[in-house]
Structure formats: structure tokens, C-alpha cells
């Protein structure tokens, strides 16, 4: 069952289309990665989903309810972490966490709160004015994960956290998923998305340009090969699915489309392989290919 679903969601700011005809859905018990470069429209989409912005066109629902009409009802069951966490300089972190938990409604789980404060190594007695960006994010994350939500909406939640805290965050997400909760995670940290997400949607210039499970998307990516052969490899550049061939003395590095891998390996093996290294396709490659934009991808192959 789709907990969250958008159909043709569009948001205009004046004449500017920040979100353009987006269809995504988040199923129960899955972590959905929402990735894209800065200014792609991730936050705008999320703020429409939260009922802060009114969609210009299209529909969006969470738990089967309309995100604009039934915002308050929906919010009782979700936890949201914004990307830019601006807090009140004169309140302490502890006060803000309590406020956030209380405003969501439902029971306050004090034990869970203390546990998370410990886990994130956070000092709740300081005024928010003194917190770094990472610490402000912790306030928001602790309040979110201390609550018993069915859906977590996280907008680039780790951009200010150090690697250790990022790991704590990932544990929290995995824990939530294990409990059957759903997560919409907007991010541009790929290792994080690869680790956590079951499915991803890639957004650029307000449009979803690619979506599916990670395995499905890997089909679209290329494997990196480093080979050394006894004889010089010939007629490689003309082969289908071969890109970015570079020669360094004896060694050769190239990228191969995943569907042509078999042909290429057969071809190479004729020349007496001395050494063969392959790097798995990463989301990064996929990401970069789309980031490079129309001009770069048109220039290749």
C-alpha cells in the first residue's frame, strides 16, 4: 500500500516551475531516496507534501488523505526534519525537543528522548544560539526519532553531521524501517542513499529523471574496468557500450555499459589478460551522468 503518493504534482513560483509533474510513491515499510542536485526541487516537493505550499497542479496524498486539506490529521502520524533547521536563539535544545514532541501530539516517550540524546551525544542545556548546524539538526532528528511516527520525511538531514553521527542517524533510519515504518529521505549524499534506500527517485530541474529500485537503476550504469594485457588491445573504441578509454603505459581503463559487459570481456581476453580490476557501478556514476546534463551525455558514445 502506498503511504505517500503524488500524481502529476506541479508547483510554480510565478512563472518558474520548481516542481514539474512529479509522480512518486512511498510504500509501507520502505525507505525511499529522493536525490538530486541543489535547487532541483526536493525541498519544494517536500513542503508541498507537508501542506506548507499549495500545489499548482496535481494531487498528493499521505495515508490516503489530501496533503493540503488534511494537513493536521496527517502530521499527527509523520515526523519531519527540515534541511535548514532554524531554531529560536533563546530557547535551549532540550526545550525545543520537548516542544516539537508535544506539538506532534501523542504520548511523550521520555526514555526514548534520553536514549537518543545520549546516542547523538547532544547537550540539551545550551541555548540554540550556540549550536552549530549539526547540533541544530540533532535537535530536529532527536525530536523526530523519539516520536512514534508512521512516516518520516527527512530533507537532507545529515548535511551538517560528522561521520560518526551520520552513522547514528543511519542506525535510526534502519531501526525505523525494521519496525515497519516508512521513510522519505531527500539527500545528495550517495553512500547514505545506497546504504539505506530500497528505491530512489532522481530529480533534476523539478522533474523526476530516473526512478526505481537500486538494482534496477544499476542496469543503467557502467562498470569501471582496469586491465593490463600482454598484447595491445585493438579496435576497442569501436565496440558498442565502451566509453572513456584511457591508456597509461600498459594499463588501460575504460567504462562499459552493464549490458555489453559480456562482449567486451570476451574481446579483451583475446589479448592475454595480466591483470583485471573491476569497480562496481555506483550511484555516483549514475548521478554524475545525469548531472553532466544533456550536452555531456550527447557528446559521448
Amino acid at each position: 500500500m502506498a503511504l505517500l503518493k503524488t500524481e502529476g504534482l506541479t508547483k510554480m513560483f510565478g512563472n518558474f516551475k520548481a516542481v514539474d509533474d512529479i509522480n512518486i510513491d512511498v510504500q509501507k515499510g520502505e525507505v525511499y531516496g529522493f536525490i538530486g542536485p541543489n535547487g532541483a526541487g526536493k525541498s519544494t516537493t517536500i513542503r508541498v507534501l507537508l501542506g506548507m505550499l499549495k500545489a499548482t497542479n496535481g494531487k498528493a496524498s499521505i495515508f490516503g488523505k489530501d496533503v493540503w486539506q488534511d494537513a493536521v490529521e496527517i502530521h499527527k502520524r509523520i515526523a519531519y526534519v527540515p534541511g535548514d533547521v532554524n531554531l529560536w536563539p533563546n530557547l535551549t535544545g532540550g526545550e525545543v525537543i520537548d516542544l516539537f514532541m508535544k506539538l506532534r501530539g501523542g504520548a511523550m516517550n521520555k526514555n526514548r528522548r534520553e536514549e537518543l540524546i545520549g546516542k547523538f551525544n547532544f547537550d540539551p542545556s545550551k541555548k540554540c544560539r550556540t549550536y552549530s548546524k549539526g547540533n541544530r539538526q540533532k535537535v530536529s532528528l532527536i525530536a523526530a526519532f523519539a516520536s512514534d511516527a508512521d512516516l518520516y520525511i527527512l530533507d537532507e538531514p545529515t548535511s551538517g553531521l560528522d561521520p560518526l553521527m551520520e552513522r547514528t542517524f543511519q542506525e535510526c533510519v534502519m531501526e525505523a524501517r525494521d519496525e515497519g515504518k516508512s521513510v522519505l529521505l531527500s539527500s545528495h549524499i550517495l553512500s547514505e542513499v545506497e546504504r539505506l534506500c530500497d528505491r530512489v527517485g532522481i530529480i533534476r530541474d523539478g522533474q523526476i529523471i530516473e526512478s526505481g529500485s537500486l538494482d534496477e537503476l544499476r542496469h543503467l550504469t557502467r562498470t569501471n574496468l582496469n586491465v593490463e594485457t600482454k598484447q595491445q588491445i585493438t579496435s576497442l573504441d569501436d565496440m558498442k557500450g565502451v566509453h572513456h578509454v584511457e591508456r597509461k603505459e600498459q594499463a588501460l581503463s575504460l567504462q562499459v555499459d552493464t549490458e555489453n559487459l559480456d562482449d567486451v570481456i570476451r574481446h579483451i581476453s583475446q589479448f592475454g589478460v595480466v591483470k583485471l580490476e573491476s569497480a562496481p557501478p555506483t550511484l555516483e556514476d549514475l548521478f554524475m551522468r545525469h548531472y553532466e546534463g544533456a550536452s555531456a551525455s550527447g557528446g559521448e558514445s
Partner: protein
Amino acid sequence: MNQQSFANTGKLVRFILRLDRFRMLIWLLALTFFTLMVPLAFLDLYPSQADRDVMAETMENPAMTAMVGPGDLGNYTVGAMTAHQMLLLTAVVVGLMNILLMNRYTRSEEEDGRRELVRSLPVGKLANLNASFIILSLLNSLLAIITGVGLYALGIDSMGLSGSLLYGLILGVTGLFFAGLTALIAQITENARTVFGFSLALLLIAYLIRAIGDVGHEALSWVSPLGWVTAAEVYSANNWWVLLLLIGGTLLFVALAFYLNAIRDLDAGFLPSRSGKRQASPLLLSPLGLAFRLQRTGIMSWAIAMLLVGVSYGSVMGDLDSFFGSNEMMQQLLASQEGTSFTAQFVSVLMVVVALIGTVSPVMAVLRLNGEEKKDRLDHLLGRAVSRTRLVAGYLVIAVINGFLMLSLAAGGLWLAAASVMEEPFAFGEIYGAGLAYYPAMLVMVGLVVLLIGFVPKVSSVVWLYVFYSFFVLYFGGVFQFPEWVGKLSPFGYIPELPVDEMEWAPVVILIVIAVGLTAVGMLGFNRRDIQG
């Protein structure tokens, strides 16, 4: 403080000018236009010396002195009149401008994290403060020159070159004095709202000390920089040396500000930051609780200020009585006025002023909602189970109670002080009722802010223009003899001026209906629009 500390000041100056030239231009135009218009109006309204002497007669009472300072009433020329009635008040506004701008360029910048970006460039540690001073020196100099030359250029007999230049310079230098004071406070405390609160409080205290001093304890006036402003006796004695006092004070503040800036860390202040509560008190845990907590200090300070305003005005009532008792001509003048005493008339004028000062606080309370939105902090509430209506209602409740409190404190304070000094004191109900009568007009202002926030949040602060307009037409309406409809453009113009007028209930009911209507429509707008972020 070596040469490096000031590196690239010039570029910053140009940068600030580029960003804020319109803001500065508007201040400059408004102030000079206002200053130059007044003597022309006086000349028009009081063409002969006899007219002006009558005016001087009405000005010769302690309450007026408390408000605008002492004047050369014996030789009340157009120049003396302008200096008496306008200079002090204009100086206060110039002070306010400098507080706002200096805070904007120093602590606000720093608190919002923009200073850090700039400081990572090859820009000196003190360059920002230096640039801010240069900008404000330029602005205040321009103000001084345009005002000074402009006043002289009006070609009014009693306004000579020397007096006119002094008038302009006093304004400019007072401005710099408060710019310096603000810069100093901006080094000491860490957050921009506190800087504004402190600086404004000092400005008001300076005004009040001078008021008390001018009414009876002359030595006290010398403690206040605003006392120095009136001591210049522009267009009569022209005491240039008071400029030295103001400049001396300015230099002291500036030097201290530079010193403190040089020895402190970025983003830090000098007040110790205490460790706070690990857990929130239950009172904080609602949109209303949060809204109150955010404004608590501001509301309390304003409440104290209102009480002080009430008490200060009340305490001169006794002198007023004895003054009228000894002035036969005045007694006759007042006797002809349908049996109301001059003191009562005076109370009715005071109440407009008090009500408008009191309006500032509830208007700020609602505008705070807009401030929160600009800082992207509404998402935290609306992203949880808080409806927009509940959010606005929180701010509204605070504003509505706040307005009532402000009027009650000022009117109560006035009655209490007046009762303790007058031989035949007013009844409590008479004074309190006169104050409270303005409550519906205040609510209309509050409703207007909700309407603005609901539909045009970006320009919601234009409500200040309307508040200022109301103040201007109702306070100066008598002096400039505006036609009646000018006052009727403000909700405050419909309120009967108690205790002189009879109480009328129709305007009260209509204004309340309007206030409720504005609020409801504004809420509807807020419920339908995008939350900015």
C-alpha cells in the same frame, strides 16, 4: 588594532550602500521633508507675532515642557517655535534610525552568519564596524547638511544661518551618538533583538530623564543626551558647545566599541551565557506558550515603559493645577469651554498619545508571526499537528491581551500619579475609561496586521506607516489645523476624546466589528497561501 584590521573597509562601505541605499534614502527624505515642512506650516498658521504669543501661552505648562522640552517662550518666533516643538522629537526619531541601522549592519549581520562569510575573505577584523560607522557618518552628515541648509534656504526671518546649521548638526550628531551607543551594545550582547531592546530602552530613558529634569529638577536634564539637545537653544541662544558634549560621548562609545570588537571572538559577546533548562516547562509546550515565551521580555519592557509614561504624565498634573490656578487669563479661556477644565482637555490629548504608544506593542506581537515566517521557523510548528488557525490565534491572543494591558498600565499609572499630586483628583473611572476607549481602535490595527500577513506578508510592516500617520494627524492635528476627514482616516480619529467629550458607543461597536472582520479575512488568507521558507 593594526592596519590589517581595517582591510577592505572601502569595499564593505560600497557594499552596504549598494544594499541599503533605498532604505537610507527614504529615511533621509522623510526626515528632511518633515523638518522643512513644519516651519512653513507654522508661518502659515501663525503669521503674526501675536498669534505666536498665544501659542506660546498655551505651551507654557509643565506637561508640554515634559513632552517637548523647554523653549524660548518669551520670544516665540517661528524659529524658536520650530526648535521648541520639533527638534527634540526629531532627534528622538533620528536616534531611532541610527539604532535600527547600526544594529542591522553589526550584530544582525553577525548573528545571521553573514559576517562569518565576509570575514573569511581578506577583510579586516574591524572593517565591518568601521564601514558601519563610515556609512552612518555619511548619512548623518547628509542629514545635518540638508536640514541645516534647507532650513536657512526657507528664508524665514527668525531662522538665520547659524541657528539653521546648528539645528541640522544637532540632529546629525545626536544620530551619531546613538549609533555609537548601539555599536557598543552590539559588542556586549550576542543577539540583535537584545541590542535593539537595550538601545531603544536607553533612548527612552534619556527622554524620560530629560522630561523629569525639565519639569523641575534641572540638574537631571544634564544627565541625558537629549537634555543637551534642548540645551542648545537653537534659534535663540545657539549654544554650539553642546555639540562638543555629544561628539565627546560619541567618540567614547566608538572607541570602546572598537576596543571590545578587537578583543572578542566572532559571534561572541561579553555577557556570560548561562546553561539553561534541559527540559521545557509545560507552559512552553503550545503555539501560544511559545509565542508568549518569544515575546516575554519585549512585552514586559514595554509594559514598564507604559507605566512610566503614565506615571510621568500623571506626576505633572499637580503642577498643571497650580499653574492654571495662578494664570487668570488661562482660567478665563478655559471657563468659556463648556465647563471642562484645561487639565481634563490635556488628559484627553494625552490619551491619544498614550494609546498610540500602547498600540506599538500589540502590533509588534502580531508582526512577530511574520518575523517567524521569514526565519523559516513556522515549518517547525505547521509541520507538526498545529493548524494555521491555531498558530495565528496564539499570536492574536497575546496581542489582544497585550493591548489591554498596555492601556490599563498607562491609564492606571497616570491616574495614580495624578491622584497623588492633585488637590481635586480625577475619579479612577474617568481616567481609566478615557484610556480604554481607545482599545477598539487598537484592535483595528491588530486586525489590519492580520489582514496584511494573510495576503501580503512581505509588506506587512507598512502598518507602521499607518500607526505613524495616526499619531501624526491626531497629535499634530490641532497644531496644523487639518480638516476633519484627515483624522477620520485613522480608527483612532473616531474615538470620543474622554473626559472632554461624551462617551459614544456607536464607534466602539463599529470598530470592534471592523477589527473582527479584518482578522477573520486575514486568517482566511493565511490559511490559503503558501508559507514562505
